[in-house]
Structure formats: C-alpha cells, structure tokens
C-alpha cells in the first residue's frame, strides 16, 4: 500500500504549499463588506511597495534598471478590440495616426473614465465608509465622491467624470455612472464617446493586495455593442497621493500649434 501513502503525502504537501502561498484576505469594514480603502496602482499585476513593484522596467519606464528595454513593463489591460461603429472607428484611427495630439489630457482636462483607473503612472487613493466611497486620482488631481445605495439625482447635467452611484453585489462594489459630457476618452488614444455613455464598473477586492476591476462601457451612439475591459489594481502601502497641477507649465498645446503651423510631419506613416 505504498501508492496511497505517497499520494496522501503529495496531497498534504501541496495543501501546505497552497496554504503558505495564499494571499492575505481582503479586510472588511464594520458593515462586513470588503473595504477598498488604500492607495492603489492601476493596470499592474505586481504586488509589493511601489518602488519594488516598479523596479526593473517600471511602469512608464520609471524603473531603476538602465539596461531594461524601453517598454511599459507592469501594465496589463485586457480588452476585446473596441467595437466602434465604422464611422466612429475611423475617428479613433485618425486620433491614433495624429499621435493623440487631440488628447483632452494635453489641455490638462480630466482624461476620462475608466481611463483614470488605467493610468498606472499615478496612484489612486480610495476611502470607503458604509455610505460612501471616494476615489482620489493623483492624475489631474480629480476625485469622485460616490454614494452607496442612492439613486442618481434627477437633475444631472453632463460633466467630465459623470454622476456615479454605487451598490454591493456580494463582495463586489458596482459603480453605475451616467451624465458624461463627450469631451473625454474611455481608455487609449482617440477612444471618444457620446453623452449617452453608460459605464458600469465592478471593483472586487479579491485579496489584501489586489482589486479585480472590470468596466462595461455602453454607448449605442458610437459602439455596436457594450465593450468590456478588465485589469487589476494593486495595493501600494506607503505610497502617498501627491499634488499634480497640470496647468502650471503646460507647453504642449503651443508645441502642437507650432508643429501644425510650420508643417512639421509627425503623423504615423
């Protein structure tokens, strides 16, 4: 009866290994719900403090290794190709070919949602109470203060970050956002939308270190069907969200104007 013994031994050993590797559980608030409070880095899969997780390549090439290739190491966003209607896809492609000089962020305007979650070069601080969750984004120093279990107000006027309300579905915080203007981008270069944008974000703190993020983007005026993107946000203990006053010394609009005026070629081939 050697075989069962070895199987039992192997099973026991692997159980111990799994237990030893299991990440710490997500903390919970007084209401028993997972607590998202903390400073987070979007579009990263690496656990640890900011300087450790971004060593080597580093996000946006900020790592300390000068021999690291110039790629954006730690980011990871999973999506299907954006399902734009043909006329809208042509507009997205035109922004890409113009290398994004029409980016609202180049004017220091809010970049858009869920794009703010995906910008991993800058951290995000979340503060959660039983009645409210507040997202503070270092990028552009904008915030969203979101009531939990409240309806959208009846008098929404279009804004850059829209109107958001949240509710819990099990361990997932679901944020429903409407009331956007049409001046921001959804994710990458040129991903515009209309004022009919309806965004549903799902935040699931699956462990102490990690939030699984999913956004479903619905905008029948420009998309052929809802578009879903997924990424992870990683806890960055010890990182503080800092000031970022973009308009301080923004020379880019003037540079773009000169490029266009002087006919300097910069379009993609």
């Amino acid at each position, binding site marked *: 009866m050697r075989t069962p013994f070895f199987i039992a031994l192997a099973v026991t050993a692997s159980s111990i290994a799994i237990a030893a590797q299991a990440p710490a559980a997500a903390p919970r608030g007084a209401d028993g719900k997972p607590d998202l409070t903390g400073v987070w880095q979007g579009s990263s899969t690496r656990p640890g403090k900011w300087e450790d997780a971004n060593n080597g390549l580093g*996000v946006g090439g900020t790592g300390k290794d*000068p021999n690291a290739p110039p790629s954006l190491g730690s980011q990871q966003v999973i999506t299907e190709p954006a399902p734009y209607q043909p006329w809208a*896809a042509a507009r*997205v492609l035109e922004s890409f070919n113009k290398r994004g000089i029409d980016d609202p962020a180049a004017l220091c305007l809010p970049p858009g949602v869920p794009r703010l979650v995906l*910008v991993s070069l800058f951290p995000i601080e979340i503060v959660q109470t039983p009645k409210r969750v507040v997202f503070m984004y270092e990028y552009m120093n904008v915030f969203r203060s979101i009531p939990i279990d409240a309806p959208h107000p009846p008098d929404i006027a279009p804004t850059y970050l829209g109107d958001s309300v949240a509710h819990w579905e099990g361990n997932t915080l679901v944020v429903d956002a409407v009331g956007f203007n049409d001046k921001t981008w959804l994710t*990458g270069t040129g991903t515009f939308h209309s004022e009919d944008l309806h965004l549903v974000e799902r935040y699931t703190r699956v462990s102490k270190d990690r939030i699984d993020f999913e956004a479903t983007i619905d905008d029948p005026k420009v998309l052929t069907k809802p578009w879903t993107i997924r990424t992870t946000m990683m806890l960055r203990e010890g990182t503080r969200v800092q000031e970022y006053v*973009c308009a301080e010394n923004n020379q880019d609009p003037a540079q773009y104007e000169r490029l266009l005026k002087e006919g300097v070629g*910069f379009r993609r081939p």
Partner: protein
Amino acid sequence: MTMTRRVAHAVAATAALVMLGAPARAHHSFGAEYDSNQPVTVTGVVTKIEWTNPHSFIYLDVADAAGQKVNWKLEGYPPNVLYRTGWKRDVTMKVGDTVTVFAWRARLGGPLAHSREVTFADGNKLFFGPPAGTGDGGAAPAVKVP
C-alpha cells in the same frame, strides 16, 4: 468542472482577448513632439531645473562642435513621478553639476529633446523621462484597422 477543463476554458477565453498596452502614459504625445529616430546624448553643466507640471525640464550648457556653448532644454517626468523614481529635488541634481543625458530630439529641431536617462558624475544613473513613444497611442490603435 474539472481542473483541466477549467484551465482549457480560461486559455480559450484569454486567447479571444487582446492585451492593450499604453494607458500608463502621461499627459502628452511624445511621438508628435519628439522623434524616436533621432536619439542624442549630450554632456554639459546644469544651468536650471524646472520641477513643474505636467512636465519637468533640465537646462544644460553643452559645447557644440565649434566649442560654442549651447543651452539644451530637456523634457521629463512631473515631480511626483520623479519622486517615485528616486529623485530628490535640490539633492539628486543641482545647478552647476555636470551630467550626461540620453534623449530624443524634437521634430521642431534646435537644442530641444525628450530626456530618458541621466548619468551623474559618480556614474549613477536615473531615468528623468519616459521611453520613446510614450503617450502617442502605443503600438496599435484601440480599433481594428479595416
């Protein structure tokens, strides 16, 4: 569902998706303003450092081929990113220091470039700016090209 089937399922689901790079970029289009096909390395004396948003700038007196001083302007990360990258304002690099900067030249020409790596007199190196191609849309557009 067995583990094998679950794994096969996950692999199939992942294969159907696309990994999108790029949203880590900050603020502006590197590719519109600077040319990744024109790398340049300059060594000179720091005359001014602007720790400003949305981007910082190093100004460097560099001797040209004729021995004339030319003041180069080198763009880089904002102060918050520099801080997380290991820079300390007024400590890591000061006016009067001699440094070498690897950069890419501006499409507009002149002594203007986008910095990447700064090498200090003691041989230490730090990144002052992002890799070439940051913020200009990444390797592929978000939509399928027809």
